[in-house]
């Protein structure tokens, strides 16, 4: 009886699998990469381009002969901006699809929902998004910038161009709160003064009163780590009130989802930012990347910071597999921990063995006619915030997200 049942179960699972997932190849001689992203719903501005970047990276890897002589096959799921689906697809990737690596997750909550599933099942996990920092887990590799990497570069530059009095308006969640603390630290370190800090939940879209409040405080510079569509209203209302030429504006988030293209040139020009990527970067890698993107998708405008991070993630993983000569979990982790680097469209990206975060180039930029003009490139910035709390070579069994005390 139980044999029968098990047999039926296996057949049924295989059958449903075959029906539900129109895969190109079902054979075991491929390497499977799982991807979980919000390709529809309220976070699709980020997820869609990330998905495109991942597919582009894999097709390039496959065109170059694949990895270890095998093709890389993508198993991708659209979480439709629903947190519960992250857990579901995470389990699906691990148990049914038995993928060799998982890339994905956009919001921190979605990362935390799948990180533990991957950790328990020893499935290698890449999180390729800028985030608040502090995750310490040997099973995960992260190659987005963290607040300290950005703030360390952005604050002195922006203060140098404006003045010593700084007002911070940040998104009210972990990322915003932690970024605001780092900003305050670097403002103080550079001899400035923070005259006000305000936090806004992600659904606030009316900033008239805030703009009046900021004027009462009279700062020289406003730094605005605001996130998402609703918060874009701040920059538009700021311009509508004619504040643009009176007080300088900087941000650590505006532009990662191509927000500078939603703002008109008059609204955006002059806003200062610091990221790992800009479409205007003038390097051979970026030129090649843009050409490949245009060839694959026709439109060359939809790539952004997060998409490029995802692309870097795929390249880093592929490099690790090549070095390890195997797709076995521990071998790949050890290969990545040798501190390998790749050069992608955003510059050189190096794995930091201690934290599994990325050492990367941070570019100081200014918005100009709906683009991001690179002012200065600060090469190979360390993830100093996470390094302060996390040492995976000393504690390989660590599995926490630290809140970094400043």
């Amino acid at each position, binding site marked *: 009886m139980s044999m029968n049942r098990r047999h039926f179960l296996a057949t049924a699972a295989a059958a449903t699998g075959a029906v539900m997932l129109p895969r190109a190849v079902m054979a075991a001689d491929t390497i499977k990469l799982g991807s979980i992203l919000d390709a529809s719903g309220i976070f699709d501005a980020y997820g869609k381009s990330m998905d495109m970047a991942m597919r582009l990276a894999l097709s390039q890897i496959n065109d170059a002969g694949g990895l270890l002589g095998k093709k890389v096959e993508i198993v991708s799921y659209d979480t439709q901006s629903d947190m519960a689906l992250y857990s579901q697809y995470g389990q699906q990737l691990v148990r049914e699809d038995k993928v060799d690596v998982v890339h994905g997750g956009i919001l921190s909550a979605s990362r935390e929902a799948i990180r533990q599933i991957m950790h328990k099942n020893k499935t290698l996990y890449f999180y390729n998004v800028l985030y608040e920092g502090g995750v310490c887990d040997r099973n995960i590799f992260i190659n987005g910038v963290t607040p300290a990497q950005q703030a360390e570069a952005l604050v002195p530059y922006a203060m140098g161009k404006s003045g010593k009095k700084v007002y911070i308006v940040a998104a009210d969640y972990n990322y915003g709160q932690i970024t605001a603390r780092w900003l305050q630290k670097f403002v103080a370190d550079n001899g400035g003064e923070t005259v006000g800090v305000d936090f806004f939940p992600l659904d606030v879209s009316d900033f008239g009163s805030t703009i*009046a409040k900021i004027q009462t405080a009279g700062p020289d510079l406003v730094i605005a780590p605001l996130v998402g569509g609703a918060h874009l209203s701040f920059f538009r209302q700021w311009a509508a009130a004619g504040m643009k030429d009176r007080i300088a504006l900087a941000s650590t988030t505006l532009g990662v989802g191509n*927000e500078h293209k*939603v*703002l008109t040139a008059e609204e955006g020009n002059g806003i200062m930012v610091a990221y790992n990527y800009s479409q205007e970067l003038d390097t051979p890698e970026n030129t090649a990347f843009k050409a490949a993107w245009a060839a694959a998708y026709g439109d060359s*405008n939809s790539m952004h910071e997060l998409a490029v991070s995802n692309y870097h993630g795929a390249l880093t993983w592929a490099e690790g597999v090549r070095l390890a000569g195997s797709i076995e979990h521990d071998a790949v982790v050890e290969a990545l921990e040798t501190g390998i680097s790749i050069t992608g469209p955003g510059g050189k990206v190096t794995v930091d063995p201690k934290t599994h975060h990325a050492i990367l180039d941070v570019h100081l930029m200014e918005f100009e006619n709906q683009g991001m003009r690179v002012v200065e490139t600060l090469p190979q910035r360390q993830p100093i915030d996470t390094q302060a709390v996390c040492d995976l070579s000393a504690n390989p069994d660590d599995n926490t997200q630290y809140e970094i005390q400043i």
Partner: protein
Amino acid sequence: MDLVFVIIVEMLYAVASLVLISAGLAVVFGMMKIINLAHGEFMMMGGYVTITAVTLGANVFVAMLIIAPLVVGLIGLVVERLVIRHLYGRLVDTMLATWGLSLFFIGLATMIFGNTTTGISTPISGFTVGNYQVNGYNFFIILVAILLLCLMYAVLKGTRLGLIARGAMQLPEMAAALGYSPERIYMATFFCGSALSGLAGAILAPLVGLVPTSGGAYIAKAFITVIAGGPSLITGLMVSSGLFGFVSQIFTFAVSPVIGEVALLVAAVVLLRLLPQGVTGKFFRGRM
């Protein structure tokens, strides 16, 4: 002193924007007893129509005040003919249908426009009051809201069409018995409601970051305002918008925008607990 002026402007702006975002829903709900869950998406489409029209070379004001309401009104008309008219008198089913429509429109807008549509700047520049810069566009919104209320009053009170509409609203069977096809009236009402939603979306477009999912932010607020207003269309809209806008701005300035929004919601709870039929269910009876 300057600050007081700024606060007053912001307060009036808050009231005006509540009037604008609720007007379309108020017409549809008040006349047809349909909870249009796709209201926010009609607004979103108004925004996109405006942006598209301006990029194609239309004058900003023409795009906002004429093209957007017309186009969205026509979309509403199509929706009414294809879906809503099968569901009259079935509140629950219309909720399901309009929720489905809202998802459909979000998906459609995503496929057509993608997520990075360049917005339009406000056509009116900011100006200085003492030490403060004020958003000049606020005055335009306040003006439009006032004109809109006057227009609605004039149409309902002064024209034969308004008379029929009011009659059909109070006693649909009687209006039908007098020879006025309820179907026609409902069709016209849904067109007007959609056009008003489109107008609201168009006018707010230069102030918000427009993405296909923007509509979701408005539906709850509009719904609360309309219900709290009660059965009288215009008076209800004015009173509840005025109250909620005032309360939320006071707390926004005193504490923070979050507390402002929470204060609005708490005010709604208290109001409905004290006046279970909405403001105009108790006071201003029989007005419009």
